């Protein structure tokens, strides 16, 4: 589904990604872990198409398409979804109207007819239940004045509405209490299918108790320095990132 080959990227003139290689297949859950500043969020942003970063080399193929050649909105149309670490507040645009536009634009890209008001509300109701989000919240301006937990639940709600093929969760657990983590994780898990995949980007292992990964990769200094199964996450939790740093330093 996703094939990243030797991806390098800069922010201004500083090299942040120094050759990433990653293969994700349909039905899999991958986790990328790493200390602050290792390049995790950069990788997520580059995949979603933020133009803040310059891709300097390598390739990314998404369902047979050259992902890096697509605009952010086209990537969404192709089925890529990024749950933001810091969802942006949009004053004056209600979440419902935003979602209606977003969903119908994505449907248009996929050659589907727009949903009418009745169909839309039915779908929305169904997905709201999934993340335990309230309708009054959705009538308010998008993310404006939302608590941290509400913002993250709203991200998962959007994900549920758009039904992406690949969902990238960027530090979705940061700032959440344990109940909120459970709600968010349940939402994500209930959306898992044979034909979609999830990439969890996280600093801590705790989210992975709820969204159990098939593969864990450790990102350090712009490169994936180690890959393994979920046990690797537990090892990191126990020993901290220093053992990885020390190992790589000696190589």
């Amino acid at each position: 589904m996703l094939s990243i080959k030797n991806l390098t990227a800069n922010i201004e003139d500083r090299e942040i990604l120094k050759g990433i290689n990653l293969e994700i297949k349909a039905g899999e859950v991958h986790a990328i872990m790493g200390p602050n500043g290792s390049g995790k969020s950069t990788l997520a942003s580059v995949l979603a198409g933020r133009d803040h970063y310059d891709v300097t080399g390598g390739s990314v193929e998404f369902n047979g398409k050259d992902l890096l050649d697509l605009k952010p909105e086209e990537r969404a149309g192709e089925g890529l979804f990024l749950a933001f670490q810091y969802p942006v507040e949009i004053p004056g645009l209600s979440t419902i109207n935003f979602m209606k536009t977003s969903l119908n634009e994505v449907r248009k890209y996929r050659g589907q007819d727009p949903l009418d008001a009745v169909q839309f509300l039915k779908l929305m109701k169904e997905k709201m239940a999934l993340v335990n989000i309230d309708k009054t919240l959705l009538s308010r301006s998008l993310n404006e004045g939302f608590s941290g937990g509400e913002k993250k639940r709203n991200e998962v709600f959007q994900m549920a509405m758009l039904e992406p093929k690949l969902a990238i969760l960027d530090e979705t657990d940061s700032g959440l209490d344990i109940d909120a983590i459970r709600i968010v994780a349940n939402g994500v898990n209930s959306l898992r299918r044979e034909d979609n995949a999830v990439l969890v980007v996280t600093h801590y292992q705790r989210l992975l108790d709820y969204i159990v990964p098939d593969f864990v990769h450790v990102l350090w200094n712009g490169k994936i320095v180690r890959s393994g199964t979920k046990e690797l996450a537990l090892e990191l939790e126990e020993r901290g990132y220093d053992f990885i740093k020390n190992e790589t330093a000696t190589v």
Partner: protein
Amino acid sequence: MENIDNIYEQLDKELSMNGADNLREIRRGALEKFRRTGIPTTRHEEWKYTRVSSLFNKQLNLPVSGADLPFTREDLDALRLPGQAEANELVFINGLYSAAFSVIRSSGIEIVPLAIAAENEYAPIVKAHLGHSSKYHEDGLHALNTAWLRDGAFVSVKKSAVPEHPLYIINIADARKQHQFLQPRCLIHLAARAVLQVIDNNITIGNVDCLTSQVVEAVVEEAAFLEYYKLQHDAPNSSIVSTTHIRHVGKSNSHVVTISLDGKLVRNNLNIVLDAEHCESHMYGLYMPKGDDHIDNHTLVDNVKPHCFSNELYKGVMSDRSTGVFNGKIFVRQQAQKTNAYQSNKNILLSPEASVNTKPQLEIFADDVKCSHGCTIGQLDEDGIFYLRSRGISEDMARSLLLHGFATDILEQIKPLALRNYMEELINHRLELKEYEY
């Protein structure tokens, strides 16, 4: 055809002629002020960023009273804002009040020619309030409106009257043949406990440059409530300098929304005079100049008496090479203790050639007051644009949605639903947002 250069001689001659006219004294005083001060230049502090002198470089046609009307009633029907078929209409044609076209449909409201009101039972009101705004405008353009005053209108809303439909002021300029210089004038009186919605709209027909210098004065008595909606989406050949002067003389409220979408040069003076205790006024503005448009909003809140509240929010979106101006003056006189006055001005510049000048001006002479002001100038939030794009929304649409969101809290202040929907429509059209409901 007349030129501004000889307008003084003409008016001087007219005012020297015999004939009773209760307006003569005020006009004579204004004419002298016009002679002294002339058309303001950018050296005038209040006109620093708005150059009106160039509008007087050409021969201007001053309309003549009693001339044949250039329109029919059917012409007018086509020009009315949607949803206002029931409104009470106060029609000015080329700056002159047209009794033939004006219609009162609600009870408790009356329109009388100003010259007649100055002599009948309304004379004390006219005498007390007509020209009150001139104390706030030390420039000849405002004075000229008063000096020239002919075929003005007086609107009376009776005690406790709540007209079912708004008063819709339609200023029609006939710019099909000549440069027009129009100077509509009206005085609106809300007696105690009266409630009135006013919609004020300019319409220019034809492509020749025209200039409107409008003065509306409103008096709000005890427990009355005035809502005032000024909508400017006129032709690109039309320029307007307007003064809306609202004077609260009893504990009362006002709610003013000014939306300026089009016009070559727009200058709005909004004065709120809080001349009684416990008055409350809310002012909202949205200006979206494009091309080479210039839109200037000067607001003034004069806190004369204690315990008044005013709140002001103006928002601007400047595109292309356009310019915006916001000047917000809050004046708190020494005896106006316990004043609460808030002001905020927010601007978005969409192009490197667009600009805005914003200036809060607080002059506070009382010591127990709460006043605040703030202004921002920025660009569209790039993070917001990326966020929307990452959800499948195109870059252009994302920008439009952000701008629509920016304008929303002003549009929400338009209480008559038909009017709000129409303004929404105009703004969506401007932003090219059509596809889904917002």
